[in-house]
């Protein structure tokens, strides 16, 4: 479905031809052509490793392409060759980039962050006055409002992103590249970002919007370009396509939809009543939390990251202790504060940061599969490891959970993110836990891997496990969970049946509006 988009040449602000970039044997970008018109919002869609970020890093001067050429319109609108190799030349050519991880100095004010690097070191106060004037106009035109004198550290994620965009506009960007801009936003913040982008585009700004989320690509873009394995596999107006079709093009095969069959919940496996966990650095981490999880049930936990999810997760993983309240597992008071006790009690734990907490990268795959089980009689006799049994077990798990790796002897750090997650899931689920805590289990994974993780969780639910799923992806929560609760400032809302919840209502609750207010707004 490569419908060529014909545009008048003078309309173009960016033209890439045959951009190729190799990393060793890997072809990250394979002869990519891209046209971007003035005022157009182009979505760049693709899975991890499809080459989106590489392409944009070439454009922004972080990498040099092995082959191909790039032309960018100058201020007068004439296409001129872009000399690659330095972000500075790209900035001067009118290309601005907002990285997924913001590049702001937290201790400086918004204004300082925006003008940083453009400021003359001499007579800064004069520059400041003209900068304020220019920014006032920019904020007026774009509808983005930011307190220029506030220190960045005090600002919300949405505000920080606005500063990043203003930073690009302040440097007269005519092309704005946004790398996964909604990953950290609430639904409402995303809405407001989209409104801003539409407004800027109608004003003549061209936008490249990198994403792997289909819904937002459909909502915001004029045109979608899909990358797979470093190649352009589709380039089509957004109006003529739909989600399932794009997903199939992106992955290269049909993706079966995840279906959650209704199930009658069983006995209670986890019972938290009025639980209170003190936060680190005297911050309150978890306040008066009530939560019940039953067998055959997935409880989704929504919320902007940092609102208490970590404390809840640490408590159940055995890394933190509560100072009052009741914490029962399988009808008995839980022994808290010991990961080993939690494992032997029958809890499967999938850590939020899989590289930091989930695996030992320099050790082999079979050793990592053994991390929680090395002391069990089947794998050790009198402290001597039964390596044969461990390797045989590893081969089984690798097969059963489709962990793609050169073999059990491969160092785990060489595996891709999705396969590392499958390894952790294999380790956890092959113990057949009665309670599973999955903290951001699909973050950063490809659609195929995400679907697989969802199926595994649903299968575990079918086998009788109770599951707590902490996620920032609301679509995921709505697809997989039976009930959903929302964190805000250390407090967990009562759980609601998924059928009664909308994304909009969740968004309001994540932003701190009361359940009643949210319900009224949703009605």
């Amino acid at each position: 479905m490569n419908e060529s988009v014909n545009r008048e040449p003078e309309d173009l602000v960016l033209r890439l031809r045959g951009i190729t970039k190799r990393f060793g044997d890997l072809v990250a970008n394979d002869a990519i052509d891209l046209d971007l018109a003035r005022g157009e919002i182009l979505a760049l869609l693709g899975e991890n490793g499809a080459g989106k970020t590489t392409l944009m890093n070439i454009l922004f001067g972080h990498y040099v392409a092995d082959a191909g050429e790039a032309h960018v319109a100058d201020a007068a609108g004439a296409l001129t060759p872009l000399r690659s190799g330095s972000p500075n030349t790209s900035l001067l050519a009118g290309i601005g980039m907002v990285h997924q991880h913001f590049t702001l100095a937290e201790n400086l004010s918004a204004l300082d962050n925006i003008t940083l690097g453009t400021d003359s070191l001499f007579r800064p106060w004069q520059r400041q006055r003209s900068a304020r004037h220019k920014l006032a106009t920019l904020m007026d035109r774009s509808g983005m409002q930011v307190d220029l004198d506030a220190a960045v550290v005090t600002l919300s994620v949405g505000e920080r992103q606005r500063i990043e965009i203003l930073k690009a506009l302040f440097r007269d960007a005519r092309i704005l590249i946004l790398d996964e801009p909604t990953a950290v936003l609430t639904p409402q913040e995303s809405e407001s970002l989209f409104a801003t982008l539409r407004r800027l585009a109608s004003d003549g700004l061209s936008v490249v919007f990198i994403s792997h989320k289909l819904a937002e690509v459909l909502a915001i873009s004029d045109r979608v370009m899909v990358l797979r394995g470093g190649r352009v596999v589709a380039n089509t107006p957004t109006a003529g396509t739909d989600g399932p079709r794009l997903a199939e093009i992106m992955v290269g095969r049909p993706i079966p939809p995840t279906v959650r069959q209704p199930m009658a919940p069983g006995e209670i496996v986890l019972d938290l009543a009025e639980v209170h966990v003190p936060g680190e650095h005297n911050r309150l981490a978890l306040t008066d939390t009530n939560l019940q999880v039953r067998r055959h049930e997935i409880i989704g936990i929504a919320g902007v990251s940092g609102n208490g999810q970590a404390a809840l997760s640490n408590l159940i993983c055995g890394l933190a202790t509560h100072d009052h309240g009741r914490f029962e597992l399988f009808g008995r008071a839980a022994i808290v504060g010991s990961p080993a006790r939690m494992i032997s009690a029958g809890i499967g734990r999938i850590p939020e940061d899989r590289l930091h907490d989930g695996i030992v990268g320099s050790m082999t795959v079979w050793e990592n599969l053994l991390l929680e089980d090395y002391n069990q009689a089947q794998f050790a006799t009198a402290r001597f490891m039964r390596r044969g049994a461990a390797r045989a077990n590893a081969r089984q798990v690798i097969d059963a959970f489709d962990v793609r790796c050169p073999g059990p002897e491969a160092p785990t750090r060489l595996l891709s993110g999705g396969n590392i997650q499958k390894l952790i899931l294999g380790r956890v689920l092959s113990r057949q836990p009665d309670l599973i805590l999955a903290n951001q289990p699909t973050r950063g994974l490809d659609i195929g891997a995400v679907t697989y993780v969802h199926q595994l969780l649903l299968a575990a639910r079918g086998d009788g496990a109770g599951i707590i799923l902490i996620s920032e992806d609301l679509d995921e929560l709505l697809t997989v969970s039976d009930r959903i609760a929302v964190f805000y400032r250390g407090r967990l809302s009562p759980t609601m049946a998924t059928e009664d919840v909308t994304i909009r209502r969740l968004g309001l609750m994540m932003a701190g509006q009361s359940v009643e207010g949210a319900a009224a707004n949703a009605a």
Partner: protein
Amino acid sequence: MRLEPRNDVPVYLTILAPAGAVVLALALTAIPLLWADVPVAQAYALIFEGALGSRFALTETLARATPLIFTGLAAAVAFRARLWNIGAEGQLYAGALAAVALGSGAFVAPAAVMVPMIVIVGAVAGALLMLIPTLLKLRLGVDEVVTTLLLNFVVLLFVSMMIEGPMKDPMGMGWPQTAPMIDQATLPKLIDRTRVHAGLILAVVAAVVVWVLVNRTTWGFEMRAVGANPAAARFAGMPVARVMLRVGLISGALAGLAGVGEVAGLKGYLTLDLSPGFGYSGIVVAMLAQLNALAVVVSALFVAVVFVGADFMSRSIGVSNYLANLIVATSLLTMLAASLATRYRLRLR
């Protein structure tokens, strides 16, 4: 030109790389020798002759390698778990002091009882000394690099006090040294009229035991996991503090054994020049061996060859035996470069 990680390291490289590193180090150290108008080929030939060229030379090299194997193992075990024990020198003296305290007449029993006892006492002394910095690290987060290093000087001063004072040999004609070990507490010689003693066998056995411990037991599994990623080890339910404590005790005990061997196998009494820095050289030995316990034996032999040979060369043609330090230090650097070469492949484009 760029480096790419290798997915698997071919076996020939793991043997070729250290050998290449040594050759390169010798080539690099030839530069200052040429500068000083020293006949390089002759100097190197003398080093080899002095270390390996005769029965006497060989036995000297083996005697010198014995303490280096112990201190090398002490460093290798600790570093594997990212416990930076720089205090093997002090632990060596602690082990020697304990062995002398028991073995110089304070207690008399047949050799079959005495020898195992001083070995155990020396190991315990080294372990207890390492216990202090390990506990400080675990309880209070004190950096063990600082505490283990500084404890070396504390121990040396303590030993100095003991051999000038309470433990001074009354028959020693005023020299600062302890009374000699009694015969029953002396490690037997392996070869008559040489300095090779039973400590060498103990050292090789220790290397095998440490290798098995690290690579084949659940304790070693925990040590490696805690060393490579403490957060993941804790998350997986491993007793991280207990593992660290265990590693500290094992490491200190191995360094203590180095002191036992020197005092009960070689010198016969304790002086302040018992060790010419075996504790510090052990770090180099461990790094050259890439923390592999079996390779520690080989790398200790290499370092011993260089030191013994350089002494001989120095006596023969008058080049300072500091050259030994230069060769060992350069080898360490080229070895680090070689280990990079085994893990990455150089690709020209």
